[in-house]
């Protein structure tokens, strides 16, 4: 999951970033509303964590303007202000969830997963796809009951595909899901991860749509692949 973290307090931002990364999320950090806007245009994000007290513009204003521009990205607001009007204003401005500082990192991650799940139209956390089961919050995958060990990048890749069943994703979109904006990406890195995923979950799990990109294909039980 690719998270855009918009927080001006350096100390807090580094903590959230490190904590979410440790829980398997990809985090890009910005410290101002203008930087957030620029990054949102440059890359694809799954969810945004927004602090309200930004130096150049009020977080609520940023959120309102994004919603006016038709941005549907799920947004979780982080703030230390706990007046009810603040919360109501935040939700009315287009936020999807609200977390009060100080918070628990696991709760933040769980809420982000929930936001993503709802955005994908699912009600339970675990994604089932044929014999494949994947739990985005614990990053555990199993195929036909057998646990499958996936690297962090592979998890992100799988989740991006599972969240968009039937849709063709360009390699740029997939890269955005897997890598942070500042990560060094080698040209064939994505292909390597797709290759690993196919090896672990069956060849057909990632279908190549020639000239366009990739699409989620059927998962196959391990014994079938073995035969």
């Amino acid at each position, binding site marked *: 999951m690719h998270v855009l973290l918009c927080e001006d*307090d350096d*100390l*807090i931002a*580094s*903590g*959230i970033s*490190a*904590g979410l990364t*440790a*829980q398997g999320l990809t985090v890009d950090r910005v410290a101002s509303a203008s930087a957030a806007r620029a990054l949102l245009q440059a890359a694809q994000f799954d969810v945004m964590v927004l602090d309200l*007290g930004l*130096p*150049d513009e009020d977080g609520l204003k940023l959120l309102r303007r994004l919603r006016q521009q038709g941005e549907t990205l799920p947004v979780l607001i982080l*703030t*230390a*202000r*706990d*007046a009810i009007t*603040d919360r109501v204003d935040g939700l009315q401005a287009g936020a999807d969830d609200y977390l009060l*500082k*100080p*918070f*628990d*990192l*696991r709760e933040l991650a769980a809420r982000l997963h929930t936001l993503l799940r709802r955005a994908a139209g699912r009600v339970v956390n675990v994604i089932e796809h044929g014999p494949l089961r994947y739990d985005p919050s614990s990053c555990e995958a199993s195929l036909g009951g057998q646990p499958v060990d996936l690297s962090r990048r592979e998890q992100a890749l799988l989740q991006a595909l599972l969240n968009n069943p039937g849709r063709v994703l360009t390699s740029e979109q997939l890269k955005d899901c897997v890598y942070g904006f500042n990560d060094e990406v080698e040209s064939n890195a994505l292909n390597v991860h797709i290759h690993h995923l196919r090896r672990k979950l069956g060849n057909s799990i990632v279908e190549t749509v020639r000239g366009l990109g990739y699409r989620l294909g059927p998962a196959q039980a391990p014994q079938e692949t073995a035969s």
Partner: protein
Amino acid sequence: MSLRVRLSLILGSAFVIIWALAAAWMLRDLRQQMMFSLDQRLVASARMVAGLIDQLPQPLTAKGQEAHFSADQLSVPDGMACQVSSLRGEILASNHKHDGSMDDQRSGFQDQTIDGASWRTFTYTRGDVRITTADRHMEREALNRSILLAASAPVLMALLGSLGLLWVGLGKGLEPLKRMCDALRRRRADSVEPMQVAGMPSELQPLLETQNQLFLRIAQTLERERRLTDDAAHELRSPLTAIKTHLQVARMTDGNVREQALEHAEQGADRLHRTLEQLLMLARVEGSLSFDDGVRCSAEQVALQAIQDAGGGDNRRIALRLPTEAAKVYLGMPAPLAVAALRNLLDNALRHTAGDDPVELEVHMTQGQVGFLVRDHGPGIPEEDLQHLTERFWRSRQSGGCGLGLAIVQAIVQRCAGNLRFESSSDGLRVWLQVPSRASVQQP
């Protein structure tokens, strides 16, 4: 008791008393006129009877016979008695049948009792006869009563009518008060919205306006308090969040990441510590706690101490310009407060001066005052922000402070009757801190 009932009672009582007095006066006059008229009737009747007797062909004689005249013949009004007697006392004629006769020895009006009834009599002597006419007092009173009754009924009606009108009129007149009262009653207890009551009379308008201004001021105060609490929550929660988050990261990770997380947590704790210290300082300065430790402190000592405390020990960038007499001028305020104020100013200056540029501190002595000038070479402060500088939790965008430093300085200045002034230009900010000095003591 409502204003309406109260006014109605007071005005109503006054009405009743005045009307009663007027009515009593009127009724007394009426009675007198009435009695006078009845007396005149007795006189007129007696004269008329006398005229009739004059015209008789032969004089009246008393022969022990029944009276020659009946009442009809004497043609006196109903209910009136008439008696004609000779000067010797013989009754020549009477229209009244009773055992006793009227005493007619004296001329003029008399009140006498005959056969147990009281009469009003008039005796008139003409030639050789005496004519006495009489009215029963009872009849006179009955007549009087009926006239009084007829006269008092309209008075009573008028009184009742005016009392009723008074009640209704007061109700109408007090309507604006009632509307205001209703508007107040409808308000929620915690509402600070201005009141809208239409059609207020000019006497109540100022009250309403004052009330609304008060509501406005309360609303502003509440809003300011709410914002302050909110800001305080923000300033305390942010470092706490940093600490908590980094501790959690430290638990999730290991190696380098963990070390860094712990270091960050420590930085957060330092920040929280600073914020708490500043908050406590502000509370102490604004409260009534005494800072006076009895130690006199010269301007020089204060400047040196503040420099030593400033910048977390990094004070090499502070250039001090100190006149020699500064050692002999003592401040008229507790030393800890003076040092705290000056240190906060120096901290700010250091924070806003980039790199190794110096921060200057000059001490000036004037009559009864010690002035500290702190000058930095930072970017300065926009004109419109100068007024916000001493607000609690206000801070400029670049500032890393918690927004309390200058608020504390302002509070100290207010407490110690000093003065704080800012001058901003493109080459930095000048802050003048003036505090009262104690009468300088010459050291031996």
